């Protein structure tokens, strides 16, 4: 089967990003839009926009049946889920498989395998990929014993949680029982799954992830790593590649571990294996695998020259991997900042509204992924991330200078954004040196009082 027409089950910048590659490949695009996104740039660019429901994601972008019906009814042979929304819902991949529609992503089984944290951890151990010391516990006695082995401080994590949700820190082992009871009750209420597990708490860690592509038959290549340690409340804000000052042996081991993990699953498509690098111990641990294209994929594209969306489509189309590991070269460095429509002065409150005027940066090594044009609406129903500004250069210093220049050139009127906040982070001496840990932004916030 050959993909000729793709339904894009997403919105915002990633919808525009996918449409661009589809158009370059000569493919037709149908964009599923909610009522709030009828006038969006993606809706204008796509060959057809189909309104799938009201603005609220639960009534539109998260409806599996509606998305598949939209694809069938508009003659699409494939669905690209983007990131977020239904991208990691096995139910969508499964219904596509059932209806003979190509899901541009992994199989439903693979999504399930990596979606459950305990299962993913078991898979990691089986693939000889290091994991954070810890594990599931069925009783309080078991928990006490394991906690003593790991040593405080310890994290109690919800099996169904993620993105920083459903975690609790135990600094003193005498608090373990109380914290576990609370964590389990909260997890049951929030995720419908009361299971929790224990994990060593890494005081100084860096979030480093490896981009992989798999052909679905056991062949996997990696496209280097990304350092996403600049985070606020577990939300990534700045991402870059290569990870600065990461020991070369660790970097190589991470790449190999990511490939081993994905290969064991016969992983199909683009995926990201996330690791926590324990700075003090000079060790890394498997965190999770994201079975989709990532927000921060452009930095990888900038240094490898590979269009990851095009490769996703090629793999989904049965063309397999179109290059080997030896063909992938990392050229220079790239840094990305996420532009969020939010107000840092008001505790990062979302700032939806209409963008009256916008001017995006241009120039050597600069790329902007966005759906924001003059008059664009930023509805209050969705994520506040509205653009990514990426700078590439022959080395990190050049990329950083270019990014700083690009931010100075950027003007967005009508809504508040975090651009000035991001520029301050880029100018921080620690960031300029490179290799900050995930506590970087919290320390900056504490310093500024």
């Amino acid at each position, binding site marked *: 089967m050959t993909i000729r027409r793709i339904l894009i089950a997403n919105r915002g910048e990633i919808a525009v990003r996918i449409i661009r590659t589809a158009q370059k490949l000569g493919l037709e695009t149908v964009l599923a839009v909610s009522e709030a996104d009828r006038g969006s740039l993606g809706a204008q660019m796509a060959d057809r926009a189909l*309104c799938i429901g009201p603005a609220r994601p639960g009534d539109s972008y998260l409806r599996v049946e509606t998305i598949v019906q939209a694809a069938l009814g508009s003659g699409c042979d494939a669905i690209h889920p983007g990131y977020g929304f239904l991208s990691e819902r096995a139910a969508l991949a499964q219904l596509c498989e059932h209806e003979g529609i190509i899901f541009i992503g992994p199989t439903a089984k693979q999504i399930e395998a990596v979606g459950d944290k305990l299962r993913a951890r078991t898979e990691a151990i089986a693939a000889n990929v290091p994991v954070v010391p810890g594990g599931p516990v069925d009783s309080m006695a078991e928990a006490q014993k394991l906690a003593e082995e790991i040593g405080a401080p310890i994290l109690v994590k919800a099996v169904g949680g993620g993105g920083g949700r459903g975690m609790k820190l135990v600094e003193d082992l005498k608090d373990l029982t109380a914290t576990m009871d609370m964590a389990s009750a909260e997890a049951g209420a929030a995720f419908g799954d009361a299971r929790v597990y224990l994990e060593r708490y890494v005081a100084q860690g860096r979030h480093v992830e490896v981009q992989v592509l798999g052909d679905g038959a056991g062949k996997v290549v990696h496209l280097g790593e990304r350092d996403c340690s600049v985070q606020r409340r577990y939300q990534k804000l700045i991402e870059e590649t290569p990870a600065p000052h990461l020991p070369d042996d660790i970097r190589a081991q991470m790449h190999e571990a990511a490939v081993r993990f994905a290969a064991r699953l016969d992983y199909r498509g683009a995926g990201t294996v996330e690791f926590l690098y324990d700075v003090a111990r000079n060790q890394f641990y498997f965190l999770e695998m994201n079975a989709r294209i990532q927000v921060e994929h452009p930095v990888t594209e900038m240094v490898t020259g590979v269009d990851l969306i095009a490769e996703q489509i090629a793999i989904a189309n049965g063309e397999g991997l179109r290059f080997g590991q030896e063909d992938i070269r990392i050229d220079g460095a790239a840094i990305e900042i996420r532009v969020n429509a939010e107000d840092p002065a008001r505790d990062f409150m979302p700032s939806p509204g209409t963008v009256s005027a916008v001017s995006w940066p241009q120039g050597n090594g600069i790329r902007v992924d966005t759906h924001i044009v003059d008059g664009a609406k930023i509805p209050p129903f969705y994520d506040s991330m509205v653009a990514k500004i990426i700078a590439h250069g022959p080395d990190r210093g050049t990329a950083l200078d270019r990014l700083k220049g690009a931010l100075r050139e950027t003007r967005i009127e009508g809504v508040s954004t975090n651009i000035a906040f991001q520029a301050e982070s880029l100018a921080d001496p620690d960031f300029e040196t490179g290799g900050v840990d995930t506590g970087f932004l919290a320390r900056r916030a504490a310093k500024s009082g």
Partner: protein
Amino acid sequence: MSLTAKDVEEIMKLLEGSSFDRLVLEVDGLKLELERGGSGAPRPARQAAAPAPAPAAPAVAPAAPTAQARRSTEAGLVEVKSPLLGIYYRAPKPGEPSFVEVGSKVDTETVIGIVEVMKLMNSVPAGVKGEVVEILGQNGELVEHGEVLLLVRPES
């Protein structure tokens, strides 16, 4: 201006006899797009499952099909919209009479059609009391959330 099925057939013949691959005709808010060779006919599997097959469609289903243009210019008509995206059926089953025709009297609860989402049939109430003036939704075709299915002259 409006086109009958016969008109469309004539235009298709013209395209067939010409050296062009694609024809776009736009008159008074009505848009007709034809393409030679077919770039995505409806899936056979779905056609078989459809309770009420659509009348013979043009050879091609372009990505951006032509929405039925509203003809009635009468003021005060109420638009009855599809409450969700799906396949619109005018009759409960193939071969059975349509729920409503032009001229039918409807009440707010009167079912005017069915919208199917992955084999789940959702009946669509008129939501207004009055007389059906025009039917815009195409039987067996995909309708969007909020797409106008028919126009009703409300009873005061």
